């Protein structure tokens, strides 16, 4: 129904709809577009890096530009691609998995997206001004403090703004999952993707403030003459490293836990078995999050913290391998004796298990503090974290998108093209990164613009670049798949994979209110229980009644736009005081819209019972 209406509406109306939407399903699509755009951008930057390193002593790009591209690649991929793509999946799926009509704070949800979008745009504006940030995605002081031009200012302010958005998204998911579960959906019946979203959101809540503080201190050092990180003025550069990694290590789990969640949904569905060791999976997730806060200094073994601190952090880090191992074995045992269907999402899951295990193994190697003095800042580290981030997070996102595409768009991505994408990506990934471990062991340092000929590094780098082209081909194929699927526009049923969880109990396309009647949940894998014991439909937990819906609003966009303008003003006021005018205009827009939001009651509207009855049967 709604699609027919959409076809009739003009482009302007659709655009306005998305600019003002507070519907979690549409916000998911916005996150997908935003995250997808930055993923392509970060991918192009990666290709520039790899082309520069295709042969020794290459002059493809200049040293300064290399530093900028390398910094922006890392920053973009972590903050502007991986996280938003995961938020896309969370927004699309979590409310449906717990039987809710929306998230707890739809307005805040939209605000979170727009803050991310404007923060990301601000960061990338730097390309057109005095050059992009060039101090690495970790922006270590004092390099980041003395870096000339405005690049690092854009880093600090842009990430600050998008970080606010991330914090809001995290808080929103925590409250949604605690408060909005359908009757019968106890904590220990929540699907693993909901659990990992929940735990990752808690990590966001507690880890991001450290980044916020660090970025504020950096902003004040660079723009307002403060001395937090200036040793000659009594500051201390190591504080930045601590703050960054107190945020940074939980961040890697914020990324990888939801990916674990995706695979914990995909593997049971395509093995036709319930998840093996459900409660130990939940326990392992929580344990990883808990330990994840106590290991940050493993990124700082070479700083000189002393043998006691190094040993404590080394042991704590190695301990994380235990809950991670529990998870790996549970996935394997879920498949054991299962009725396995090799679909595209399942292929990603099968590729993920060995790839991620290699990344975890090199992680334990790195965690050996004494040995890390050799590995540190070499290509070995680059190999390690790409195995966990690409083999874990990117595979997870691609699997999740393929798996939930029918839920999000009502159509199936082409399976044949999907498998081609997987193989290109998988082979390219191992070609690119496996050899990098050995390049690192042979002494190739990380973040260098050039390497010299005849040091045994030539062939390895060439292979690595060839692999990168395979991955690029895979990514292009994925985009092509999206395009032809949208053009064909063949709608499928609400449950095309014969799946187990609640999000598949909804007809296709998903109505704006998700569930006409909130369903009653009778156990883990609620839809599967009904398929086995009932008539394949969820039993409603409430009589048909009016549904309360939130109103769309343009205020989130304006609030974020205000901060964007203010950010530009704050960055440039060091050059010329009159930029303060811009900053004040920006802050005024933000505060004005906040004021408007506070004084104007927005009570939403109701969809009436009679209109619902017209629309045929209730929950499928």
């Amino acid at each position, binding site marked *: 129904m709604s699609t027919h209406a959409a076809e009739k509406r003009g482009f302007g109306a659709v655009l306005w709809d998305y600019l003002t939407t507070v519907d979690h399903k549409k916000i998911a699509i916005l996150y997908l577009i935003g995250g997808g755009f930055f993923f392509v951008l970060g991918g192009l930057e990666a290709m520039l890096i790899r082309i520069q390193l295709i042969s020794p002593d290459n002059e493809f790009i200049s040293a300064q530009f290399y530093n900028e591209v390398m910094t922006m690649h890392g920053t973009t991929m972590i903050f502007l691609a991986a996280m938003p793509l995961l938020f896309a999946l969370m927004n699309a799926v979590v409310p449906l998995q717990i039987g809710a009509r929306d998230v707890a704070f739809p307005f805040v949800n939209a605000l979170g997206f727009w803050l991310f979008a404007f923060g990301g745009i601000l960061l990338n504006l730097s390309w057109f001004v005095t050059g992009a940030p060039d101090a690495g995605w970790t922006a270590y002081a004092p390099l980041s403090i003395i870096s000339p031009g405005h690049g690092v200012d854009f880093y600090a302010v842009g990430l600050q703004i998008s970080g606010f958005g991330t914090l809001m998204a995290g808080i929103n998911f925590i409250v949604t999952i605690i408060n909005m579960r359908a009757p019968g959906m106890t904590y220990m019946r929540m699907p693993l993707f909901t659990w990992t979203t929940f735990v990752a959101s808690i990590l966001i809540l507690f880890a991001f403030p450290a980044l916020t503080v660090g970025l504020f201190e950096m902003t004040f050092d660079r723009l307002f003459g403060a001395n937090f990180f200036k040793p000659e003025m009594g500051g201390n550069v190591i504080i930045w490293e601590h703050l960054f990694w*107190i945020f940074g290590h939980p961040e890697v789990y914020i990324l990888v836990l939801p990916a674990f969640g995706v695979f914990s949904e995909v593997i049971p569905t395509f093995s036709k078995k319930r998840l093996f060791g459900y409660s130990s999976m939940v326990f392992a997730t929580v344990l990883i999050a808990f330990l994840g806060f106590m290991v940050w200094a493993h990124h700082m073994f070479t700083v000189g913290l002393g043998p006691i601190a190094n040993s404590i952090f080394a042991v704590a880090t190695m301990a994380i391998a235990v809950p991670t191992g529990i998870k790996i074995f549970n996935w394997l045992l879920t498949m054991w004796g299962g009725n396995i269907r090799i679909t595209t999402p399942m292929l990603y899951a099968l590729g993920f298990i060995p790839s991620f295990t290699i990344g975890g193994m090199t992680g334990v190697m790195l965690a050996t503090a004494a040995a890390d003095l050799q590995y540190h800042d070499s290509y070995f580290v680059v190999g390690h974290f790409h195995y966990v981030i690409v083999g874990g997070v990117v595979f997870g996102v691609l699997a999740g998108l393929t798996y939930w595409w029918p839920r999000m768009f009502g159509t199936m991505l082409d399976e044949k093209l999907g498998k081609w994408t997987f193989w290109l990506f998988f082979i390219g990934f191992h070609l690119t990164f496996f050899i990098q471990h050995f390049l690192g062991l042979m002494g190739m340092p990380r973040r260098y613009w050039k390497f010299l000929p005849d040091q045994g590094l030539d062939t390895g780098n060439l292979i690595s670049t060839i692999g990168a082209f395979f991955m690029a081909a895979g990514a292009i194929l994925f985009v092509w798949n999206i395009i032809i699927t949208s053009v064909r526009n063949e709608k499928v049923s609400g449950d095309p994979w014969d799946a187990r969880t609640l999000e598949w109990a909804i007809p296709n396309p998903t109505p704006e209110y998700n569930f006409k009647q909130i369903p009653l949940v009778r156990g883990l894998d609620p839809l599967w229980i009904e398929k086995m014991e009932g008539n394949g439909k969820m039993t409603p937990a409430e009589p048909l009644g009016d549904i309360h819906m939130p109103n769309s609003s343009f205020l989130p966009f304006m609030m974020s736009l205000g901060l964007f303008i203010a950010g530009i003003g704050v960055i440039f006021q060091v050059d010329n005081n009159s930029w303060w005018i811009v900053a004040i205009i920006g802050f005024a827009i933000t505060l004005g819209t906040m004021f408007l939001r506070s004084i104007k009651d927005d009570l939403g509207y109701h969809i009436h019972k009679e209109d619902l009855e017209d629309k045929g049967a209730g929950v499928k």
Partner: protein
Amino acid sequence: MSKNTNSAHSEQFYKEKHKEEMKHQVITFAMMIIFTIIAFGLVAGGFSKYFTIPVILVLAVVQFLFQLYYFMHMNQKGHEMPALMIYSGVFAAALTVLGLTTIVWW
């Protein structure tokens, strides 16, 4: 008829409960005032710094818990999640402070 007695019963029950709660609040309030007087007394009395500072900190923590549990009702049912979140946050913050004080500034 029976309905009436029922509601009378529950009214009675809630009255008792409120009375109980009131009692707790008054007691905690009195304790908090006493704690504050002790804290001021310690400073005014000129005791050793190494005695005064830890005692005041402990008193502050206890007062804070009183505030949370008795005045912000965390002692009642349905507050498990907020409690869990608060303690996780305190844990993360404490680790940060501990890390910075021991490794950076020691």
